């Protein structure tokens, strides 16, 4: 294999250069190539939990957000085998929570929904779990709808690493894992959360929602209505 300078790998046949310490998905995004993902956000350290960004690197399956790029690596991503698995992972996320897209304020701006469209997910396939997850409407400006939480922990990371606040954390284990907030009452209103926090703006789904702006942008004109998620994985959402 020829040693190109700078180092590079191939992704579905396309040559992708990468910098020191970059993981596969980081290099791919810099090169404008989309690999489906949910818990990854280029502004944060890779986490590796949703597994949607799974690729085949030199024949071995691995999460592309945490796998370091290597010179000459052969990466397969947009292939049937991998997309079938990603679709199954999405279906798992859908049945694990309660996702009623038509009535969700995040519809059209939701990365879970947009990724499901991208991967032609036609049905949830598995039996729904229908978990009981009460809302938290205590905060004057923000609503927490835990029904849609996919446990990506982006809010946890944003609050801890960017806002320096630790408003959010994960508790429980296994299928009972859930998001909690940093208050004795368990209510967002009793934390130091603010709409200016980074954590208020990283949720890829519809858990952390600003109040009183519902449906300001009509459905049909939202980010992923205009362009598929593969074109703009992290659009700036109007009005959020």
């Amino acid at each position, binding site marked *: 294999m020829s040693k190109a300078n700078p180092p590079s790998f191939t992704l579905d046949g396309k040559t992708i250069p990468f910098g020191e310490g970059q993981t596969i998905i980081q290099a791919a995004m810099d090169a404008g190539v989309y690999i489906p993902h949910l818990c990854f956000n280029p502004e944060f350290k890779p986490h590796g939990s949703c597994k949607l960004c799974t690729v085949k690197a030199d024949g071995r399956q691995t*999460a592309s957000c945490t796998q370091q790029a290597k010179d000459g690596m052969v990466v397969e991503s947009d292939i049937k085998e991998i997309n079938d*698995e990603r679709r199954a992972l999405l279906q798992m996320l859908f*049945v694990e929570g309660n996702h009623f897209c038509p009535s969700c304020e995040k519809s059209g701006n939701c990365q879970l929904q947009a990724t499901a469209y991208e991967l032609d997910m036609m049905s949830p396939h598995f039996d729904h779990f229908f978990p009981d997850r009460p809302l938290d409407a205590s905060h004057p400006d923000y609503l927490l709808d835990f029904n849609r939480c*996919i446990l990506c922990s982006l809010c946890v990371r944003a609050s801890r690493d960017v806002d320096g606040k630790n408003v*959010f*954390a994960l508790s*429980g284990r296994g*299928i009972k894992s859930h998001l909690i*907030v940093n208050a004795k009452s368990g209510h967002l209103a009793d934390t130091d959360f603010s709409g200016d926090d980074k954590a208020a703006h990283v949720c890829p789904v519809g858990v952390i929602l600003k109040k009183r702006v519902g449906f300001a942008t009509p459905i049909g004109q939202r980010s992923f209505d205009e362009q598929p998620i593969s074109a703009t994985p992290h659009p700036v959402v109007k009005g959020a």
Partner: protein
Amino acid sequence: MVNQTNPHAAYLDPILARHRHNPADLLQILIAAQEAHGHIHTDAIDHLSAALDLPRAKIEGVAGFYSFLHLKPQGQYRVLFSDNITDRMLGNMELMNSLCSQLWVEAGKVSEDGLVSINTTSCTGMCDQGPALLVNNIAINRLTQERINAIAELIRERVPVSAWPAEFFAIEDNIRRRDILLDGHFQSGSALAALLQRGSDATLNEIKASKLRGRGGAGFSTGMKWEFCRNATGDAHYVVCNADEGEPGTFKDRVLLNGYADRVFEGMTLCARIIGAKQGFLYLRGEYRYLLEHLKAVLQHRRQQNLLGKGILGQADFDFDIEIHLGAGAYVCGEESALIESLEGKRGTPRNRPPFPVTHGYLNQPTVVNNVETFAATTLIAENGGAWYAGIGTETSSGTKILSVSGDCERPGLYEYPFGVTIAQVLADCGAHNTQAVQVSGASGVCLAPNEFQRRIAFDDIPTAGAFMVFDKTRDMFEVARNFIHFFAHESCGFCTPCRVGTSLLCNMMDKLAGGHGSPYDFAEIEKLNVLLQSTSHCGLGHSACNPVLDTIAKFRPAYDKRLAQKDFIPAFDLDRALSQARQMTGRDDTGAHLERNHEQS
């Protein structure tokens, strides 16, 4: 500022002081707080949050991860029945139901007077002397109806657990076959003396020459692990002994820690000298809490003998000590990187690897994690040399392996064999008859049928972490697999999507089959789930979670076929069952309260 008026300060402050207000000891502090107060009170969290400078959500998140920690009041007596398949085979469910009805409490709930809570827990490592339970985290084995009646009486009379009959708490070693490790007389300090005489580098070479491979499951070369760690740079190096022993059916580490702790600690000390560590940890599963005082006494004795502490055996540059950390009911913490997270006082979520613990372990410093049996074996090698050890066992698998034998056999207990022993030999030795299957290496291991009993225990044939569960022809292998799947779903850490959701989906599918609603379609679904879990899970738990079902489908298909009432797919949702709550509320169970379809079936 620490709030001096907090009523929980009285018992928390000494605990905090003992742990030098170290946030990395959070899990240990929470365990101690719960031992003092029965549960982790919400006001106690205020105090801990201030004293440790940790957000309360983080403390709640850690407490919420571990099965043995409770944020809500529990019964004054907390009874947990071990629920491995071997306990089931010995009738644990009947005994639990009996205790529940005698004490007027529903399993999984706290009695109305707050006296008692009863529930199940994952295998407590007493399979050779089950059925077993834990009361306030202390083990009671060999349960019988008589013993359950006595326990009900003691609880009703509010007799403190410390005053219960001593024979309830007796735990047998049940060593049935001894070889070099279980037989060898050990003089404390002899392996260390050999190391000092030979030198650290030469001793490491002996360990490499012995071809010793890890006994905890993965079978990595111990000599190479120690060498990588020694060569890694860091502010400090650490030695960690993995005594989490959570794999259902495994109990050999319990016996080693009970009778051979000196060897285990000496093995850790050898490692410390070779890699240059000053601090070691033994991570002891919460189920083995009863061993803590004994182990502390062994450590203290070793300090007195100058085998631990400062200037070990008169070597000015040889300081090393060992601290014991308790687990709190989380199988995944046996995975080495989750174990390290837990040692650091966090939720036991496996890390992204690489980097591996040998370069980035405890506090991100170079760390060796080895199994209890592995450390014990290194003392034999230090004493007798690598070539001697490599001469025992087989080409790929040197030395001996301790098997924890349980299930349908006359003599359950520990059997130490040179590697290469056949399954049939073990079955003959333990007195197993009419054997239908053997589950080797626990729930995550492999299920063997009689046509495989000539295979051998070895890394290149049947590798094992030690469990050996025997099932005779009367057993229902479907129920064996179902029990294991429930174990995995309960123990999944929840970090990654495939395992978090997939293990629960699998449970539902197995329950659906058990309820007579399965069709061949469900088999195809199970196989698809297996591929997904194997290829996308974050750690070994998810990778192996489907094994028991796949093995038993492949080898014991009739156990499944007899449950296939349906030829075509039917949904898991059962309208008649959904009405059961309404029936319960209205006190009706007449035919009119059931749906048509059900009558046809019955």
